[in-house]
């Protein structure tokens, strides 16, 4: 019964979303349709949320007469994973997509700000159509509430790799980011229809771009950390198509966050901001398509279905067709506001956007190239890390080199000489790092440059904070505390980029790995540590049994314990690797248990990694996401001051 109620709520939400689209787009200046649109948007969101709660309930009650529950859940599963199972599969995750889209539509409808009525109601209308498109796809091509007859007695269980705390948080965060990009898209389409994009429009756009970027940052960081400890290969980023699918929208969202500032503060770049909003949402749909259609071979876990992929491509072409069509037709008519000099805050932000957009384009080419070659009969190929390391890394490097200059320049006309003079200490520090790293690493240029860039970013960030408190009277510490939140948020995000750079370079360039065969009692020396296999035994979890290896790790006088497991789930033929990680100030000792030797020696194969400073990668990404949070708080406070 609950499944039917859920399906009914979702169908009703579809009808309301369509109504929201029609009403919102046709609302004129005077009539009350705009108000009605807002009310419909809220009702649609409530119904979607209700439908999604119904799905969670059927998962919690393990109602195996519902197909997705039977295919993805199991009675033995811990409660948290039963709930998370609702979005740990294709159908449920698509319903989550719709729910988030409807929810954002409702929030958009209740935050008009200073936008004109036409812009506001049209953006709510477009968002309604986005929700409707997603609901049509979900209800007709991947119905989450479809029944099975006869119902199986027992579910086949969630893919064991997905039984992990990260499943609870990683997909919803990514979807909040992906769907978050639909709101800037709706706002851009509305502005193009209205033929007007003013500063009030940019003001409405900014929190959405920030929120989408922040969710994507956090979602990607958590996903990357999940892959790091779950896949058992010690890596955190593989330039896999599924990763690229989330990285492209992230790059565009990062560009959008910066260009929207220019549009709001100075009124310029409005049409570029719109173009980015359209591209960003297009890439978000493309990302969903790449992940769900299985056209590209990926190392990450997804069930795939080509037919759904085609439907998703249709949605992508509708969104991009409408977006680019309207853009080509209307954007030239938009008034372009004030100009700026070649050296100014604006120009630095233009460079930032240029670099990020090119990086996104290169990732796109690399990701889709295998499809293009295959379509042209060139055989099956894959484009792997060497390509992306040789193209995207230098581009982002140049971008990071320019980054500290941006905040040091003023709007309209900046003074490059003063900015460079102020940044000189950071430059000197970076040079010292460069030379030291070159000497210590045996003249390996790329890692040395990367580390120097990281130091340049961090030192540059602190110098910026110093310039903000150095001016004027008063105690420096008091002024530091009184700095606007916007300054803190930007500094934190930029410092995070530096921290992430250092972590990424250190982990990639200076990682050690080794495979050993160990019998219980045997020891091995690895990166200043002595590792002893104490024993291998069996343990039991709630719905799995595990082979667990216990290790003793001695480092100087310090002795620590560590265990690594292989888990065998009753519902699945494949074991999963549960690595043991010992984090220290210099990085992680990462131990994955392999298989027992086939001969009778009692030896186990063990893979050892030392990942230097790997935690800085995740710390840096979290700093960036937290910078986004602070910026959102700053924006919402500002609204209250001047309503």
């Amino acid at each position, binding site marked *: 019964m609950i499944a039917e109620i859920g399906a009914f709520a979702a169908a009703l939400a579809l009808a309301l979303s369509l109504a929201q689209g029609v009403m919102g787009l046709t609302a004129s200046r005077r009539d009350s349709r705009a108000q009605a649109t807002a009310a419909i948007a809220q009702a649609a969101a409530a119904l979607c949320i209700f439908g999604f709660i119904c799905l969670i309930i059927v998962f919690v009650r393990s109602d195996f007469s519902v197909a997705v529950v039977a295919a993805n859940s199991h009675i033995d599963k811990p409660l948290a994973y039963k709930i998370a199972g609702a979005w740990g599969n294709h159908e449920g995750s698509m319903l989550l997509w719709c729910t988030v889209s409807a929810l954002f539509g409702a929030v958009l409808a209740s935050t008009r700000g200073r936008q004109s009525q036409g812009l506001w109601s049209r953006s709510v209308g477009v968002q309604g159509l986005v929700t409707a498109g997603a609901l049509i796809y979900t209800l007709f091509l991947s119905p989450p509430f479809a029944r099975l007859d006869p119902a199986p007695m027992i579910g086949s269980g969630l*893919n064991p790799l997905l039984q992990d705390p990260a499943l609870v948080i990683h997909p919803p965060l990514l979807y909040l980011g992906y769907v978050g990009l639909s709101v800037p898209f709706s706002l851009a389409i509305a502005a193009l229809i209205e033929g007007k994009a003013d500063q009030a429009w940019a003001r409405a756009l900014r929190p959405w771009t920030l929120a989408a970027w922040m969710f994507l940052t956090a979602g990607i960081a958590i996903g990357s950390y999940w892959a790091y400890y779950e896949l058992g290969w010690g890596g955190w980023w593989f330039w896999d198509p599924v990763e690229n699918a989330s990285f492209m929208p992230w790059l565009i969202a990062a560009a959008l966050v910066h260009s929207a500032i220019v549009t709001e503060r100075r009124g310029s770049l409005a049409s570029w901001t719109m173009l980015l909003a359209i591209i960003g949402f297009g890439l978000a749909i493309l990302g969903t398509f790449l992940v769900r259609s299985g056209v590209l071979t990926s*190392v990450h876990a*997804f069930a795939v279905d080509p037919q759904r992929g085609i439907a998703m491509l249709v949605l992508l072409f509708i969104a991009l067709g409408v977006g680019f069509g309207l853009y080509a037709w209307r954007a030239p008519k938009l008034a372009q506001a004030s100009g700026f000099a*070649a050296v100014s805050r604006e120009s630095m932000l233009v460079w930032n956007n240029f*670099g990020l957009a090119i990086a996104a384009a290169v990732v796109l080419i690399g990701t889709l190239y295998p499809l293009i070659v295959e379509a042209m009969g060139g*055989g099956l*190929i894959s484009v792997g890390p060497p390509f992306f390391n*040789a193209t995207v890394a*230098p581009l982002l490097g140049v971008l990071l080199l320019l980054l500290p200059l941006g905040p040091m320049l003023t709007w309209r006309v900046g003074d490059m000489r003063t900015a460079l003079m102020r940044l000189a200490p950071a430059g000197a520090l970076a040079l010292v790092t460069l030379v030291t790293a070159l000497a210590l690493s045996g003249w390996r240029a790329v890692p040395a440059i990367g580390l120097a860039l990281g130091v340049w970013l961090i030192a540059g960030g602190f110098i910026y904070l110093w310039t903000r408190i150095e001016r004027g009277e008063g105690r420096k510490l008091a002024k530091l505390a009184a700095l606007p939140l916007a300054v803190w948020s930007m500094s934190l995000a930029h410092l995070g980029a530096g921290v992430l750079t250092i972590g990424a370079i250190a982990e990639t360039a200076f990682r050690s790995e080794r*495979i050993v065969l160990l019998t219980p009692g045997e020891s091995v020396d690895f990166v200043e540590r002595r590792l002893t296999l104490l024993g291998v035994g069996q343990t039991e979890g709630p719905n799995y049994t595990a082979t667990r290896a216990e290790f003793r790790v001695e480092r100087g006088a310090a002795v620590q314990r560590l265990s690594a497991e292989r888990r065998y789930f009753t519902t699945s033929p494949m074991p999963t690797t549960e690595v043991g990680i010992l984090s220290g100030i210099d990085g992680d000792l990462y131990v994955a248990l392999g298989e027992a030797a086939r001969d009778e020696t009692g030896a186990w194969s063990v893979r050892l990694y030392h990942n230097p400073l790997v935690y800085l990668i995740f710390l840096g990404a979290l700093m960036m996401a937290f910078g986004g949070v602070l910026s959102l708080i700053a924006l919402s406070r500002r609204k209250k001051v001047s309503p």
Partner: protein
Amino acid sequence: MRRRDQRLMMIAAAGAVLVLAATLTFVGLRDSITYFVAPSELAEKAQSGQRVRLGGLVVDGTLRRDEDGAMRFAVTDGATQVEVRYAGILPDLFREGQGVVAEGTWAPGAAFEADRVLAKHDENYMPREVAEAIKQRGEWKGEDAP
């Protein structure tokens, strides 16, 4: 006049960056793509030392371990068997009789040296390349096309 110079300068710089990015991309695509080959195409398509992705089914009963801990197994597309050596822990989903993609280099007379082995993290899934290779040999037994 100064303003126009500035604009020209910015456009020139942007053009230079664009050309650089395009060059990097094309050189990258020329040099660092990896071709997919089936075991029976390996000798003909892969030059000695070139990086390729080898896809096929792991032959039952061929998995064993070398003295140094590296794994050895044979991969087939129904026509030819190729010996693969991989110095690492095989992915959780690796099974004899199932599809696998091994990435690495090959030289005549030696085993295929893999430095990466992909077995999809879903028990029902066969890497698309493997399905293609088996279909090309006319050995496809799956219920429907991938």
